């Protein structure tokens, strides 16, 4: 049985060397809201916890290149409380504000939510829709990866041994653009998404949609970026006909399974509805922006 240890380094380089040294036996812990649940359910038995909350660059929200850079260990609550980020990316904030209770949001992070790699992770579809890019550092140096390329399967990521997710870069907010994340759960709170949809769209001055990204959660082994669903909106006035096409494309993209949280058929039926509703809200925001 592994001996357990805990370290809380202050730099990314220290984390990388600790991870390399530990081989596969270390577990990075940000907010710990998934890791500790897994630990106590005996799903994981790490020899070493590497707590990344004491690394300043992982805890910072800063303007960069006209957009934002958000540290991977920034908590949900810190994002919820950040006015400028809220104004730019309300959809992303909607995602992080749905991760568990306010108690959990005081600890949970976007980086952790992404690296936990649940198909139903609430912050991931809006991150993908926002075209956020993940900054990763590892023994081979830094690299940048679009968020949609991080999760490769339930609980699996494209991060290599020894690599750590450092931050997310959000692009500049275009005029007349807006985003939204919505999910469907049986309860109002404290549930895992049965389906979720993150939509980010941009209009021209005439109100025609010139760019859109649609990302769906809990409908496949990984969150999906669905080009056909975005195509349904691009070039349209985001009218009823476009919305209906969006809904159909979202339902068609659904490769869900039936599990304790919902049936396959139910997910296919409802993902289009949720995508449409999220698009309506994103449209409203784009028109005001």
């Amino acid at each position, binding site marked *: 049985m592994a*001996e*357990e*240890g*805990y370290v*809380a380094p202050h730099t990314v380089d220290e984390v990388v060397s600790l991870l390399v040294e530990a081989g596969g036996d270390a577990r990075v*812990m940000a*907010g*710990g*809201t998934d890791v*500790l*649940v897994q*630990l*106590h359910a005996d799903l994981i038995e790490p020899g070493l*916890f590497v*707590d990344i909350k004491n690394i300043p660059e992982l805890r910072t929200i800063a303007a960069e290149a006209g957009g934002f850079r958000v540290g991977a260990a920034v*908590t949900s*609550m810190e994002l919820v409380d950040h006015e400028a980020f809220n104004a730019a990316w309300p959809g992303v904030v909607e995602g992080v504000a749905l991760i*568990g*209770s*306010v*108690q*959990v949001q*005081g*600890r949970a992070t976007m980086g952790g939510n992404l690296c936990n790699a649940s198909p139903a992770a609430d912050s991931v579809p809006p991150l993908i829709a926002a075209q956020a890019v993940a900054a990763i550092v590892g023994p081979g140096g830094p690299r940048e990866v679009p968020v949609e390329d991080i999760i490769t399967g339930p609980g699996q990521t494209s991060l290599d041994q020894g690599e750590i997710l450092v931050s997310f870069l959000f692009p500049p907010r275009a005029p007349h653009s807006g985003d939204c994340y919505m999910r469907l759960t049986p309860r*109002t*709170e*404290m549930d895992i998404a049965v389906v979720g949809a993150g939509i980010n769209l941009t209009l021209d001055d005439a109100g025609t949609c010139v760019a859109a990204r649609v990302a769906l959660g809990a409908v496949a082994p990984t969150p999906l970026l669905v080009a056909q669903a975005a195509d349904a909106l691009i070039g349209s006035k985001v009218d009823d006909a476009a919305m209906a096409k969006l809904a159909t494309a979202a339902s068609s993209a659904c490769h869900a399974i039936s599990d304790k949280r919902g049936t396959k058929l139910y997910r296919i039926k409802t993902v289009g509805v949720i995508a449409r509703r999220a698009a309506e809200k994103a449209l409203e925001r784009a028109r005001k922006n």
Partner: protein
Amino acid sequence: MAKKVHVTTTVNGDEHEFLCETSQTLVDVLRGELELTGTKEGCSTGDCGACSVIFDGNLVCSCLVLAIEADGKSIETIEGMADGKELHPLQQKFLELNGLQCGICTPGILIAAKALLQRNPDPTETEIRFWLAGNLCRCTGYDKIIRSVLAAAAEMREG
């Protein structure tokens, strides 16, 4: 056996030292080592809120915090909520308006409600309901809990 780790922390203004295993959670240590059993454990997965405490200024579930993380930090539990002889207005309103039945969820709800009122002294019913969504209560149907929080907020605003 792995060696235990020595931790120094401040709980309700008092400095405490304890030894813990790496995998022990803050709620384990609060209840076990420090014998502060007012913080309750209902699920160990962050889903019921009974173990809510203020950790380093943030409302958290103490079942989702490693005890070792408490080193050098400050923690506020239900035992520190009343100010000397005076109950906190939330505690008083929960008593007057019967905001508790069995009482197991009460410490967590009071801590969570206090954190809410610090952020937002004048919350609506809906805001209270969503803020407290992480605190399960199986006895009251929530009605009298929400009314107690509304009444305490009103009293605190009047000072």
